[in-house]
């Protein structure tokens, strides 16, 4: 008994200290509590390894030359005042004047030069830009010129709002390994927020009141952002209901049903509630029978009831994908060739699926209810999604049922994520669903470059095209598209050809547009981005602040 009390006492002291050190309470009316983009205790703020960095490191602290708003297709100068192609192979960046780093140093061309130059010197995540640029030059204190070997217009436009600029006076003397391995605690940037503190389950950012953009764009509403690590969507929902969480970027079942009871906002008031963010795609292994037959693959496409998935699994929080898979945002929509879509597109049509199968020799020979290959081999396929990805598991079950209904024997299976990853990268699966790099962007090139990536000639692949669909002609067209100026007639022509090939050959099937999951509580903040008030793309995920998250912060207004 005595020892019990002793343990109890020690525990309570520990708990108390824990809550004192991390549970500092902030004035809620000046604090934004967010969640959905933090899955571990924050331990890294290194902009050179953005995939490890705590959300906000890029965007809130380190800023990019441009930002991008997918709602308006606006590539907006941010650190840059402007950027333009001064010739076919030269891009001149003019920087804003009067920007300082938080430590008081002036932000200027040297920092931009450093950011480019360091990736030439060292092997960094963005060093591949040196595949197509040949030099970077300081023109003046606020002007930098990039010289191109190859004018990859599309890739470049994406890079402009992806790459944060680093302060050269902090980083220039570091070795490659130092640069890549530092946790960079207390990151020092030019951005609207600064590192304040960190807890086991949270990251606290405090507003930089001297931010250079206050006069240009407006001062961000929240004095602090407490970014919570929330273990799952059910916890997030509970917090939203109680007003403990202001902005959630989780997929939360039931939101359509209850949002009005708890004063929750979503981007659209009614279905589809969420903006589209990326495309869930069905990949089929092109090196295996019968998935190596494009007719079979087309039949599969016709057999999937994506509307049912959207309605049942997502309660209409997502939209079924169009045949091209291109998300209907301006930058991608403008490249959809409607004629190609009509001529070669597909939709849920079991009869058509059966017809395609029958026409191409897939018949049920052994009368087990499922078709065999034209050579008479039985077909028994697995459709895999990671175990625990509950929405996809449900979707996969519906897909498998649909496929079985047209005579294709498919079972939905749920390996653990590590097993899934290994199968995805090394091959050996039959069918899988993935959405890894299909996010909205400045250009559909990012989508095609992933869904039909030409980097498939290694044992392990990481760049997409998981089915290892090989079509050199298509690969070349995607390269050509990159070289064609955005919006040019040529680029549209190439886009139509790419779409045609993908639809005819159907190496992968676009399924639905995963949402930019966003639910906001109006307990403390208002003026969130919505359909009527499209002030930003409401994302707080790592790497997405500069495509609208920053705008959301600038526009937030306290309730009181």
């Amino acid at each position, binding site marked *: 008994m005595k020892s019990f009390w002793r343990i109890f006492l020690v525990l309570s002291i520990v708990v108390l200290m824990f809550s004192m050190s991390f549970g500092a309470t902030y004035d809620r009316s000046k604090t934004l509590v967010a969640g959905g983009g933090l899955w571990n205790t924050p331990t890294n703020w290194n902009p050179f390894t953005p995939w490890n960095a705590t959300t906000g490191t890029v965007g809130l602290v380190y800023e990019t030359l441009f930002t991008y708003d997918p709602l308006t297709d606006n590539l907006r100068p941010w650190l840059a005042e402007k950027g333009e192609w001064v010739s076919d192979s030269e891009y001149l960046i003019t920087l804003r004047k009067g920007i300082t780093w938080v430590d008081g140093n002036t932000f200027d061309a040297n920092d931009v030069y450093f950011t480019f130059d360091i990736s030439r010197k060292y092997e960094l995540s963005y060093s591949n830009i040196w595949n197509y640029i040949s030099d970077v030059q300081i023109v003046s204190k606020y002007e930098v010129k990039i010289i191109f070997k190859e004018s990859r217009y599309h890739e470049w436009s994406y890079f402009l709002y992806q790459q944060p600029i680093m302060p050269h006076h902090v980083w220039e003397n570091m070795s490659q390994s130092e640069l890549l391995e530092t946790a960079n605690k207390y990151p020092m940037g030019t951005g609207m927020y600064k590192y304040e503190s960190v807890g086991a389950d949270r990251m606290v950012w405090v507003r930089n009141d001297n931010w250079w953009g206050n006069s240009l764009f407006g001062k961000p509403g929240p004095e602090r952002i407490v970014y919570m690590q929330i273990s799952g969507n059910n916890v997030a*929902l509970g917090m939203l209901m109680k007003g403990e969480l202001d902005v959630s970027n989780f997929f*939360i079942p*039931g939101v359509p*049903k209850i949002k009005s009871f708890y004063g929750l906002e979503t981007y659209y008031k009614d279905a589809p509630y969420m903006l589209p963010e990326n495309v869930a795609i069905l990949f089929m292994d092109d090196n295996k029978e019968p998935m190596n037959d494009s007719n079979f693959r087309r039949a599969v496409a016709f057999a999937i009831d994506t509307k049912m998935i959207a309605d049942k*699994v997502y*309660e209409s929080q997502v939209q079924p994908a169009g045949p091209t898979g291109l998300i209907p945002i301006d930058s991608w929509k403008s490249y959809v060739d409607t004629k190609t879509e009509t001529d070669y597109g597909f939709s849920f049509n079991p009869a058509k699926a059966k017809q395609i199968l029958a026409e191409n020799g897939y018949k049920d020979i052994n009368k087990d209810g499922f078709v065999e290959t034209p050579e008479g081999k039985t077909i028994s396929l697995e459709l895999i999604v990671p175990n625990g990805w509950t929405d996809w598991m449900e979707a996969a079950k519906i897909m498998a049922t649909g496929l079985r209904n047209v005579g294709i024997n498919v079972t939905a*299976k*749920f*390996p653990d994520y*590590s097993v899934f990853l290994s199968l995805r990268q090394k091959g050996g699966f039959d069918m899988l669903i993935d959405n890894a790099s299909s996010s909205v962007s400045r250009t559909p090139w990012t989508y095609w470059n992933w869904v039909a990536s030409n980097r498939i000639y290694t044992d392990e692949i990481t760049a997409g095209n998981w089915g290892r669909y090989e079509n050199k002609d298509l690969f070349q067209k995607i390269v050509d598209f990159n070289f064609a100026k955005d919006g040019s007639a040529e680029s549209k022509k190439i886009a139509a050809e790419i779409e045609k090939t993908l639809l005819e050959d159907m190496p992968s099937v676009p399924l639905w547009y995963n949402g930019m999951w966003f639910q906001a509580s109006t307990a403390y903040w208002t003026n969130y981005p919505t359909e009527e008030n499209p002030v930003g793309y409401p994302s707080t995920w790592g790497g997405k602040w500069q495509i609208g998250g920053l705008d959301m912060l600038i526009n937030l207004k306290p309730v009181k």
Partner: protein
Amino acid sequence: MSFIDKLKKNDNLYFALRNKKVIIGAVIFLALLITALIGPIIAPYDYEEFAGAPYANPSFQHLMGTSIFGRDVFSQVLYGLRSTFVVGFVGGTLGTVIGLIIGFFAGYRSGSMLDEILMMMTNILLVIPTIALLIILSAYLPYRGVITQSMIIGFTSWPWVARAVRSQTLSLRNKEFVNLSRISGASTFKIIKDDIAYNMFSYVFMVYILQFAGAILTSVSLDFIGLGPTKGISLGLIMQDAVNWNAIQLGMWWWAILPGVVLTVLVTSLYFINTGLDEVFNPTLREM
């Protein structure tokens, strides 16, 4: 001799059939077992079928309501109960049998090197949590079915059976009737069979019941933290689904709670049988 007289001659059976706890437990258990066996026949829907409107309260059409997708929870429970029984039978049997064999040999050869080694193994396994083992195993197994899960539970749950059986064997081995058999020229095998194994039967039977219940509970907790079967359905998976899909926050108590109630009833029935049998086998507790 009438049936009742015959019954009275077999004390254990006689008292078991007079023990309210055993009767109640057994009736519930058998009812659930039968339900599980004929589940797919009486289930109004398939467990993956979108049977009706989502968010539906329990009604005559959906005895346990529907899930967020409109699946019939009652049908899911009927199917899930089967897997739960499979886990209990396979996991419980495996755990008991392994524990029995190891505990038996360790006990019969107590003090020997064999005993030391077996017990060291047992003690090591005893402190390694099942969950840790499962996490490691899951990296090697692409999928886990109900059977795989049951086997894993069985292979990790035997140590305490082994310890208990060892001490039982040890105490039986020192009983004087063992010595009497020895000086009566009985073979070692016969002594092990008649004098030790038979006398452990009631004990082992109770251990088995506890293992059965334990396997079910372990499977549910594994299901719940996402280490459950990656295919099929079980009561644990239904509950995990309910939690994952916010049934509690969304007020769908029937989805989250009713499968749990069924499970609780099942496990409780086993504990009823167990405590009841404890009274039956242990004459000092026979009175009620």
